[in-house]
C-alpha cells in the first residue's frame, strides 16, 4: 500500500526525522493561505507547491490540461510579499487541482491531482539518496545510499555502481553506529553534516522496522547550508501482509489512487490485477493464474487481467470473480482455468454456472477443469445449455478462447 508524500513526512517526523515545514491543501484557497502562513512562519521568500499523487517523477511531469504553460508537478514561487504569494499560489493550485499529471511513472494516462503540498523551500548544499528495502538474496533489510540525490536509484546502479553504498541491517541488533559512520564517510560527509546524517538515517531505520515498510525512500535527502540533514521528499510503501498491525496506517489508503476493480477485488479477498487485453482470466492459484495469462498470450491473445480466486476456491469466490471480470468493458471472452485438487470440479462447475446465470453471459466462455470429479464437472458444463465450452487442458482452453475472440 502506498501513501502520499505529505503523509509519509508526517509519519517520519514522528520518528524524529527532520522534514521541511509544510501543509497539505485540498482547495486553491487553502493552498494560498498555507503558502502565506509558511512564508510568515519561516521568514522565507520561497515556497514550493507539490502535486500529491502516488507516482514519482513529478518535478518533470506535465499537466495534460496545460501542455504549454510550463506548469510542472512541482513548482516554486518566490516573493517578498505575503499577499502576492497567496495570490500566486491560489492561481497555481487552481490549475493543478483536478488536473491530470503525466509523469514517467504514471504512464500516458496520468493521474488526477486531488491534493497539493505547500512547503517551505530549503537552502540546499548537497543532495543525497537513501532507501531501506528487503534484499531477497540475503533475506535481510538493507540501507542503500548514494551521493546522487534526485536520480532514480536504478539508473545509479546501472551507470555508476561505485556510487551506490550498501549496509546490511541485522534483524538481531539493528543498524549499528559504526555502519552509519562508515556510510557518512563514504558519501564524503564530515563534521556536523555527518552527525546529522547519521541521526536522520538511524531514525529512518527505526521507522522502517516499526512500520513494516516495503520501501522507504528519501530522494533527495539534503544537507542544508547549515549542515543539517533533511528529508526533502519521502516515499513510503507498506507491506500489505503487515497492515493488520498498523490500523492507523491502513486508514491512510487513498482509494482514488487505485484501479476501482482492484479495490473491489481486494475487499472481496481476491487477487486481481487489471491489464489492457481482451481475454478475462479466472484461475485458482497465483502461479497458475500467471501461467494462464502467458498461455493466452502464447496463442496470440491478450489477457485482460490477472485473477487468482485462491487455491481452495469455492462457489462464492468464483461468482465474485465473474462479476469483476464481466464489468471490464474490454473483455471479449473469458477463460476459466481451475485445477481442483481438494475442491471438487463439480462444485466449481456449479459455481461457474450459477455466476453466469446471475451476471449474464454476453461473451464466449471457455472452462477448463481438472482434478477430483472432473468428468462430472465437465458434464455439468456441457449439459448446461448456456453455450459454455469445455476444454480438457490449459493449452486447448487458451487456444479456443483466443479463436473465439478473433
Amino acid at each position, binding site marked *: 500500500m502506498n501513501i502520499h508524500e505529505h503523509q509519509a513526512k508526517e509519519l517520519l517526523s514522528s520518528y524524529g526525522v527532520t522534514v521541511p515545514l509544510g501543509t497539505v491543501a485540498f482547495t486553491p484557497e487553502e493552498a494560498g493561505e498555507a503558502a502565506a502562513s509558511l512564508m510568515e512562519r519561516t521568514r522565507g521568500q520561497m515556497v514550493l507547491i507539490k502535486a500529491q499523487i502516488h507516482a514519482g517523477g513529478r518535478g518533470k511531469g506535465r499537466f495534460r490540461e496545460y501542455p504549454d504553460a510550463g506548469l510542472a508537478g512541482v513548482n516554486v514561487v518566490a516573493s517578498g510579499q505575503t499577499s502576492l504569494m497567496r495570490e500566486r499560489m491560489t492561481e497555481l493550485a487552481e490549475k493543478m487541482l483536478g488536473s491530470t499529471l503525466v509523469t514517467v511513472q504514471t504512464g500516458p494516462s496520468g493521474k488526477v491531482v486531488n491534493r497539493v503540498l505547500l512547503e517551505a523551500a530549503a537552502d540546499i548544499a548537497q543532495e543525497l539518496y537513501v532507501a531501506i528495502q528487503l534484499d531477497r538474496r540475503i533475506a*535481510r*533489510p538493507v540501507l542503500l545510499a548514494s551521493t546522487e540525490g534526485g536520480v532514480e536509484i*536504478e539508473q545509479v546502479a546501472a551507470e555508476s555502481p561505485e556510487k551506490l553504498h550498501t549496509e546490511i541491517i541485522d534483524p538481531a541488533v539493528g543498524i549499528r553506529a559504526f555502519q552509519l559512520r562508515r556510510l557518512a564517510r563514504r558519501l564524503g560527509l564530515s563534521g556536523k553534516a555527518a552527525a546529522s546524517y547519521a541521526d536522520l538515517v538511524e531514525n529512518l531505520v527505526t521507522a522502517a522496522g516499526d512500520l513494516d515498510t516495503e520501501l522507504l525512500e528519501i530522494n533527495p535527502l539534503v544537507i542544508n547550508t547549515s549542515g543539517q540533514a533533511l528529508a526533502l521528499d519521502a516515499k513510503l510503501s507498506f507491506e500489505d501482509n503487515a497492515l493488520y*498491525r498498523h490500523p492507523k496506517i491502513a486508514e491512510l489508503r487513498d482509494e482514488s489512487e487505485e484501479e476501482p476493480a482492484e479495490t473491489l477485488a481486494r475487499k472481496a479477498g481476491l487477487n486481481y490485477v487489471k491489464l489492457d487485453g481482451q481475454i478475462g482470466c479466472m484461475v485458482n492459484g*497465483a*502461479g*497458475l*493464474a500467471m*501461467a494462464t495469462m502467458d498461455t493466452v498470450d502464447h496463442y496470440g491473445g491478450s489477457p485482460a487481467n490477472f485473477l487468482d480466486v485462491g487455491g481452495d476456491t469455492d462457489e462464492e469466490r468464483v461468482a465474485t470473480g465473474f462479476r469483476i471480470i464481466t464489468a471490464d468493458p474490454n473483455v471479449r471472452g473469458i477463460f476459466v482455468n481451475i485445477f481442483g485438487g481438494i475442491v471438487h470440479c463439480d462444485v466449481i462447475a456449479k459455481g461457474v454456472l450459477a455466476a453466469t446465470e446471475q451476471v449474464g453471459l454476453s461473451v464466449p466462455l471457455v472452462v477448463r477443469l481438472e*482434478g477430483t470429479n472432473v468428468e462430472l464437472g465437465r458434464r455439468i458444463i456441457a449439459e448446461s445449455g448456456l453455450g459454455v465450452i469445455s476444454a480438457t487442458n490449459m493449452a486447448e482452453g487458451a487456444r479456443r478462447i483466443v479463436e473465439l475472440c478473433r
Partner: protein
Amino acid sequence: MSILCGRDTRLMIQGLGRAGRFHAGQIIAYGTEVVGGVHPRRAGETERFSGETDHSGVQGRRDSFSVDLPIFSGVAEAVDATGANASLIFVPPPAAADSIMEAAEAGVELIVCITEGIPVNDMVEAKRYLQSRPSRLIGPNCPGVITPGECKIGIMPGYIHARGRVGVISRSGTLTYEAVYQLTNLGLGQTTALGIGGDPVNGTSFVDALELFEADPATEGVLMIGEIGGPAEEEAADYVRSHMTKPVAGFIAGLTAPPGKRMGHAGAIISGGQGTAQSKIEAFRRAGIEIAATPSEMGVAMAAALGR
C-alpha cells in the same frame, strides 16, 4: 529413495483450526504417520480423525481409519512425548513465524509452513533464528512436500501423484499440481515434490532443493517451476550449470506480468526492472535447462530432458 520425507517421518501439526483439521484428516487418510498436534488451549485433549483411506497414498492399509490424535501445549512437549521429527504449520499469519521458531527450538528436523500472509519482518527474524539451528524450513506460503506412496506433508491432492523418477521444485501451488499431474500421466512420476513458497523470504531455496535431488540416487531428473520476482531462479540456474549432473527442465510464469504489480504471491513482483520472466528464462537457457514454452508442456519438457 526420496528427499525430505518418507516412511520414517513422524509428523506433528501446529494449528488445528478449520484448515488444520481438514488437512490433518486428508494427510492421515493418505497414510502419513501423524503423531500429535499442538494447540495451547486444548492441551491434554485428543482430536479424533476418521474416514475413508486414500488408496492413492501409502499402500496395503484397510479401507477406513480412526485415529485419536493427542494434543499438546507446545512443540517441545509434543516432541518429547511422540518423537515427532517433522511439523506442519497452519497457524494464522500473526503467530506463524513464532510457531516456526518454536519448532526449530524444539529440534524438529523438518518444518513445513503452509501459512500465507506472514509479514516479511517476521520471516526475516525467523530466518535469522534458524541460521544457527539444524532445522530445515519449507515455505511459508507453500503447498508442502510429498514423497508419493510414502508420506504427504501438505495440502496437495494426493491422487495426482505417483512414485517415480522426477524431483519437482516450485514456487507455486496449483502450478505444481499441474506439473505433477502431467508427470504422472506421462508415466514419469515423482520421487519427491515440494513447493518452496511464494513469499519473498522463505526457508529452503531452489538451490537447497537441487542439491538434495542431485544427491538422491532415485531422482533421475528435476523439474523446476519459477515465477517473476527475486533472484532465486537465476541463482538456481548458476547452480545447475556448475553442480548438477542430472537433467533439469523448467518453466517460468509471468511473461505477461506488468512491472511493479504484485501477482498474487507476495514475492511475485518485478521491481526496479529486476526479477523479470525474460531474465529467468534466459538464465535457465544458458544453464542448459530444457524450457517448457507453455505450462501444458512441463511434463513433455521433462521427458525430453531425460531422453537427451
